[in-house]
Structures are given as C-alpha cells and as structure tokens.
C-alpha cells in the first residue's frame, strides 16, 4: 500500500459520538479506583513510623521505585500535552520530550545517590546537613511548597480539560464537581496509604500508561507498514504543511520566541533533578545503589515512552488531523484520546481515558505527600517545635496538611481550569531549577558553600522566577494570558529560566564569598564521606 492512498482515506473522527462512550469511560475508571483502593488499604497496614509514612519504610526495590518514578514523572502534561503538541506543532513538540529525558542524567550523575546517602525524608534534610538548620529548612520548605503548588495546578487544570472531552461534561459546574471528586480521591489515597500506597498507585499507573502507549504505537506503525518515513510523510500531507517535520513551527516565529525556547530548554534540563517530589522518591529505597537502579529504570521507561509519543503525535496528526483535534473539546490535550478512539473505538478510548485520569490522580497524590512531608518534617518538626516533636505527632501534622493541600489543590484546579497543562508544568520546572538546583549542587560539591549562599540562592531564585512569571505574557498582555484585558508584562519571555537560573547560581556564589561566617569543616567532612560511601545512611525498616 502506498502512503498517498492511506492519507486520503482518513475517516473523520466523530467527536460527538464520544459522548456515547461516557458510561464505559466511567466504568473503566471506577474499576481502576477500586483496584488501587484495595491495594492502598493493604499497603497501609504497615504504616507505623514516620519512615513508613514518608518513605514507605525504604522498602521498595530499585526497579519498583524506578517504575514509580516514571509514574510520577509521566504526568498528564507528558502524555496528553506532548502528544498534542507534536500533533499540532510537529517537531517543536518533540523538543519537550528530549529536554524532559536528558534532564535525568543530571539526576543520575550528580544528585540521586548522594542525596539518598545524606538525607532522610525531604530535600531540606540534605541542604541543611552542614548548614544552619533553621534558615535553610524554611527556605527549602517554601520552595518545595511553591513548586508543588505550580505542579498541582497544572495537573488539576489538566483534569478539567480531560473531563470535558471524555465524560462529555462541558459546563463549568460539572467540571468543578469532577475536580472535587478527583481531589477527594487523592486525599483518601494519601491519607490512608502514605508513601507506600502512593507508590503502588504510581507503579500500576506507569505500567498501564506505558502498555497503553506501546499498543497504540505498534498499531499506528503497523498502519504505515512499520515505516517511520511513511508516517511522517502522511502527517505532513494531512497537515498540508511540510514544515511540521522541521523545527521552528511554534518557537521559530520571532527572535523573542527563539530566546523563549532557549529558556524553556534550560529550565527543562535543569529542573528535573530539583523537583521535590522526584527527590523524595529516592528515599523509598534501602540503599544508594538501589537509588541508582531506580534512576536507570526510570530513564529507560521514560525514554521509551517519549519515543512512543513521537509516533503517537505524528499518528494523531496523520489519522485524526490537526483541525479535528483543535476543535474538539479539550483542544490540543485531546490528541491522544482521539487517536485511541480512531484506532480501537470506544474500548481503547475508555482504557486510555482511564489511564489519563489515573495519571492525574497518581501525580497529584505524589505531589501532595511531598508537600505535606515538607511542611510537617521541615517546618513543624524542625522549626516550630525545634526537633522536640515525636514522630507520631509529626505524622499527624502531615496527615492534616494533606487535607489542607488537597482542598487548596481542588480550589486552584477549579480556578486554573482551561489553562495550558504542559506550559504550567514547564513553569514548575523553571521554579525548581532556579530555587533548588544551585543549592543542591553547591552543597553536595562545594566545600566552602555557606548558609548565606544557600539562603540567597534559594530566595533569589524563587523570587526572581515567580516575579518574572508574574510580569510575563503568561499572566497579562497576550491573547492566551491568565488575566485578560490588562497588560503589565514588561518581561517578554514566557519562561523565566534563562534569567532566574543563572541568577540563582550567581547569588549562591556571591552569598558564600561575602559570608563572614564559616561552616563547620567537620560537618562538611561528614557530609562528603557519607554522601560517597553511604556510611550511616538511613536503613530500610524491618517489619
């Protein structure tokens, strides 16, 4: 068969017919919730100590944790957002996947094992190891909460737009109701299951997501005789634009947009290794060697998945068509579900939609437990009660924080409903790369690094990233801004990374060389020896 023939018989996907599958979608999703709830209940039996609640008793193997990391990382933004971006903008969507994947090398080479060896539950454990506890913990907890908040908003906003497509609920009230249901489910998972329950939800979701994407990829490739070139040709023809195969369609328009792309690229590659919910996952394994194995597993799974999205994105462009995708409810984010419907009818659509829901649920649960741990462990236990709180009280505080964060996420999700998902995630990456990464790298590798350097770098990175976002076209002054009709956007780029990340590195250095106080060299020696050898690292909990 030749490609020309195939591309002319693209049958239109009847978007209206999707509503008929609502019941099936809900049924498959309900099944997922039921199965995971049972697992969460079983997992919660052993939740006794803080190490159980925050770090799943450090009992997961590297491969289990690696799969859970993939489940945590492959959010709705990756699956729906990147597939949609490739379907509409072609090659420029693919650039996202590359940044998201290469970033894992920073985590593998510079962060994962050293962090596992020196910390206990949170990122702040590592940063405050040899610096003064109070100021560093407060700063690290604040930046953790900020990053989690941006990331949560993105996921909840994604839930809203996904629902409009999959369940045929298009009115604002109905979508708000579903966001409340998603939020309430997530609170239950985290409250009952703690880190162990959350991890199992992520493992199941990662397997379903990767398997679903693999089936669809094989299906699309089979249609084109396993010839990538034919698929690309057909996509270019369906789009009526050969440039979908070339870079620049989305970001190549002006000099500003090119610079914006550089800024995004920087934020993506440096953000991953500083995402608090990814860092926290390294504490769920018994040793640094297992932490390394986790990263290796997740690199393979995530890389494989992004290769699938390349095929799925161009497949959606060729088989569904960019115009149908753009006009469907849910817009760009609907490319993957529509492709599933085209290939396998209502059953595959139901499966893929349930997986997409599960994705949002699992990621939101991971973020919530991270934010709660950071508040309870860093702010409550170490700052407010100055280390005197016992573990039971700390876990109690963490559980209450889960409820508060869950409610905030529901409200934020209702408010952010309709915002671009991949884009909000990119902002979370920029904030993480600016506020956290410089301090993580300095404190692991720079002997002279001081408290003042850490505090300057974290607050400087956090404040500059958030201020630049506030005064960027994201918030005002453009057609797609959050606040319509106002214009206070004096910063031209939508992603702050290119300014805020170098600034945070500079502030960390400046704060250190100008600091009159010196840190304890014995603590530095202890941290360095422990980080490389694993002496005295937190062990797995025996049950």
């Amino acid at each position: 068969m030749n490609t020309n023939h195939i591309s002319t018989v693209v049958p239109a996907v009847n978007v209206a017919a999707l509503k008929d599958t609502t019941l099936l979608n809900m049924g498959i999703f309900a099944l997922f919730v039921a199965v995971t709830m049972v697992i969460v209940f079983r997992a919660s039996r052993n939740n006794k100590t803080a190490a159980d609640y925050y770090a799943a008793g450090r009992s997961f193997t590297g491969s289990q944790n690696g799969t859970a990391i993939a489940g945590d990382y492959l959010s709705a933004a990756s699956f729906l957002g990147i597939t949609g971006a490739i379907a509409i903008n072609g090659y420029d969507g693919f650039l996202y996947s590359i940044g998201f994947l290469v970033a894992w090398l920073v985590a593998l080479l510079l962060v994962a094992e050293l962090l596992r060896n020196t910390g206990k539950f949170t990122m702040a454990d590592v940063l405050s190891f040899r610096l003064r506890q109070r100021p560093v913990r407060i700063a690290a907890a604040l930046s953790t909460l900020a990053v989690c908040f941006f990331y949560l908003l993105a996921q909840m906003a994604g839930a809203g737009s996904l629902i409009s497509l999959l369940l045929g609920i298009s009115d604002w009230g109905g979508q708000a109701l579903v966001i409340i249901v998603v939020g309430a489910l997530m609170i239950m998972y985290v409250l009952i299951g703690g880190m162990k329950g959350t991890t199992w939800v992520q493992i199941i979701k990662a397997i379903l997501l990767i398997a679903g994407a693999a089936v669809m990829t094989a299906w699309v490739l089979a249609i084109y005789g396993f010839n990538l070139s034919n698929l690309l040709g057909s996509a270019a023809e369906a789009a009526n634009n050969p440039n979908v195969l070339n870079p620049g369609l989305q970001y190549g328009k002006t000099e500003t947009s090119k610079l914006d792309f550089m800024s995004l690229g920087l934020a993506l590659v440096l953000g991953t290794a500083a995402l608090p919910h990814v860092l926290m996952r390294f504490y769920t394994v018994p040793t640094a060697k297992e932490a390394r194995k986790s990263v290796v597993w997740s690199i393979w799974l995530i890389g494989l998945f992004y290769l699938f999205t390349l095929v799925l994105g161009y497949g959606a462009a060729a088989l569904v068509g960019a115009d149908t995708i753009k006009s469907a409810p849910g817009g760009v984010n609907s490319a993957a579900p529509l492709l599933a419907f085209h290939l396998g009818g209502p059953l595959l659509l139901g499966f893929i939609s349930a997986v997409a829901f599960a994705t949002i649920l699992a990621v939101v649960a991971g973020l919530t437990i991270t934010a709660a741990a950071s508040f309870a462990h860093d702010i409550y236990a170490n700052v407010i009660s100055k280390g005197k709180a016992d573990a039971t009280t700390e876990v109690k505080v963490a559980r209450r924080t889960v409820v508060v964060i869950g409610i905030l996420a529901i409200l934020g999700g209702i408010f952010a409903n309709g915002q671009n998902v991949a884009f909000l995630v990119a902002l979370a990456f920029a904030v993480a790369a600016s506020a956290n990464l410089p301090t993580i790298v300095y404190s692991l590798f720079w002997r002279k690094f001081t408290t003042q350097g850490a505090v300057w770098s974290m607050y400087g990175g956090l404040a500059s990233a958030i201020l630049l976002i506030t005064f960027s076209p994201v918030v005002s002054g453009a057609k797609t801004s959050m606040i319509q009709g106002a214009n206070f956007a004096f910063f031209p780029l939508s992603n702050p990374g290119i300014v805020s990340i170098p600034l945070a590195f500079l502030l960390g250095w400046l704060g250190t060389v100008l600091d009159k106080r010196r840190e304890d060299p014995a603590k530095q020696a202890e941290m360095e020896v422990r980080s490389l050898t694993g002496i005295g690292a937190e062990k797995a909990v025996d049950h």
Partner: protein
Amino acid sequence: MGNEAQPQDATASVDFQEVQQTERFTTLRKRHRSFVFPMAVAFLLWYFAYVLLADYAVGFMSIKVWGNINVGLILGLLQFVTTFGITAWYVSYSNRKLDPIAAEIRNEIEGHQFDKDGNVIRGAAK
C-alpha cells in the same frame, strides 16, 4: 522506631575529617568526580548544541536524509541514544570503580559485611 536513631549511634565516634583525608577516600572522590563532572559538561554541551541548532539552524535541521527523515529527527533520536549510552556507561563504571571502594570504607567504619548489592548481611555485624 529504633532504626531511626541507629545511624547516629553507629557513626557517632567516627572522625569524618580523618576519613576524608585517607588515601582510599580521596581516591574514591577523585574517581567519582573525574567521571561525573566531565560527563555532565559533555551531555549538557551536546544538549544545548542541539537546542541551538533546532532554534537557529532550521534550514540545516530540515535537510532530508532518508525519505522524510531529516537531520533534526536524527539528531533528536541521537539525544536518546546518548542518554541511554551514558546511563549504561555510568552504571558499569560505578560497579567496577566506585562501589567496591565505597563498600570497603563503609565496612571498616560500620563493621558490617555487605553483599554485592550493598545490603547488610545479617549476623555479620561486629
């Protein structure tokens, strides 16, 4: 909860500054840094070279090499290949050059025996 306090107890008497000065530890640190630093610089340079090409050399990236497969796609897929390659290389390097020496130092200080995965072998302590 006993496990929470155990690490501090086990290492409270260790003079880490002394350990830091030992030849074995400086070798370990040197081996670790001489691998991860150049490798990090290399993959970051290669990634940014790719991003710059995609951003400012659209014509070059659009040259078709084979059918509809162009330079941009090949370089993009090569990013995947190098990421997988560096991962595999680092794992084999750590297994050969870093883990044995780290386990030796740890073993001496904590007085445990470790199996090849770095887990404490029960009953072998002190």
